[in-house]
């Protein structure tokens, strides 16, 4: 949390989709941080301790895709909530960390904000 608002980190390599996600997060009343790939996301998570939720794409360039990133975050920062989105066919729920949510692209904004509200509820 930062200044009473939950902090959401968006990880997405496509600039236009990232913009849309930032708008979605801000209009839901949260603070939005952005990263273009897993490496940048990890750097941000290492540099601050107030990130409450990570909203990540799956297909990204770099060392890790979104699935590996979500497992890495769960191992290293267990309290951080996870939402994963993908344009590819439905992933097996079992390939994601327990308690994370998965959405197919294009995702419905309300569905995402509802999921965030549920995950961020105290």
């Amino acid at each position, binding site marked *: 949390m930062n200044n009473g608002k939950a902090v959401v980190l968006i990880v997405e390599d496509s600039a236009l989709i990232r913009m849309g996600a930032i*708008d979605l997060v801000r209009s839901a009343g949260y603070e939005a941080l952005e990263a273009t790939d897993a490496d940048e996301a990890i750097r941000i998570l290492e540099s601050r301790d107030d990130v409450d939720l990570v909203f990540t794409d799956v297909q990204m360039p770099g060392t890790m895709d979104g699935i590996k990133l979500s497992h890495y975050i769960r191992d290293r920062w267990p309290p951080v909530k996870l939402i994963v989105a993908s344009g590819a066919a439905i992933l097996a729920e079992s390939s994601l960390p327990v308690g994370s949510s998965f959405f197919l692209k294009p995702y419905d904004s309300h569905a995402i904000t509802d999921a965030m509200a549920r995950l961020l509820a105290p």
Partner: protein
Amino acid sequence: MPTTPTVHFEAASTLAVVVSSNEPPLFLSDDLKIIAASASFCRAFEIDPASVPGRLLSELGQGEWGMPKLQSLLMATASGSVKVQAYEIELKRSGQTPRQLVVNAQTLDDGDVDRIRLLVAVTDVTDARAETRLKDNLIRDKAILLQEVQHRVANSLQIIASVLMQSARRVQSDEARGHLHNAHHRVMSIAALQRQLSTSPGGIVELRAYFKQLCQSLGASMIADPERLSIDVTADDSAVEADVSVSLGLIVTELVINALKHAFPDERNGTILVDYQSSGQDWTLSITDNGIGMPEGNEAPKAGLGTGIVEALVKNLEGEITLADAGPGTIVKISHQQGKGSRTDVSKAA
């Protein structure tokens, strides 16, 4: 005890059959000496036919047929303990690429129990195996490419949908925001179709699954209280081409949004039913709600049909659209009958 000579005069007919066979068989004695080899075998494996009779199999060519595994399998066949069926083996000859062979071997059962002879069939499957591998690679590459395309389409639709939502959040006017939300819903309807297409072969869409997904998505984004309002889907097993399902999906989107917006004011409870039935080439799509019903007057029905989109789509599908009182509520029916031209009279049935 005198040893019987291993060379024994086989029936002339047997030898003739072996030698002239198109499939390359070998006719062997139980100590793996060749009694006869077909001309096709000699041709296929570059063996001089004259050098064949009486030679040990392992002495043929440059000894390439002396593979220990083959030898032991043939000996086991001769002793009756094994029948070699479709055994794959690699033939390695110096200076040549290896060949994949399929070997079948059995003892010749012609009633002569004293002399064990083996009939060995050898088929060169190298080219067939290479073709299969190539085909498998092509199929896999195609599947990967299709996934790539699907991924890009999903991303593109995501961009469009979120641009519309961003605009909707910024406009001041309710009317403009409504239009942008509608546009967003139509994009999500296309997206649902994309997903169906990506999982179904041949570009055919199963309507029941598609409509269910569509209505679930519409409900998730438009129904604040699922205890109060719900959308049900009933459909037969129809599966139609992508073009038709795009139109049907857009019609369902428009009419369901309409019902959600206009049929249940003042926190009324209600249900919207989407139904699709077909018989041969004829089909009927109906959207029924149990809300307040249509207001009086001729203008209302037309205005309620998504600014002409529904009419245009129905015309495109060569169908007819009718509105009727569902007592309570409204039923909008779109039907297509083979042989009838398109009519889009919006007539209020009694």
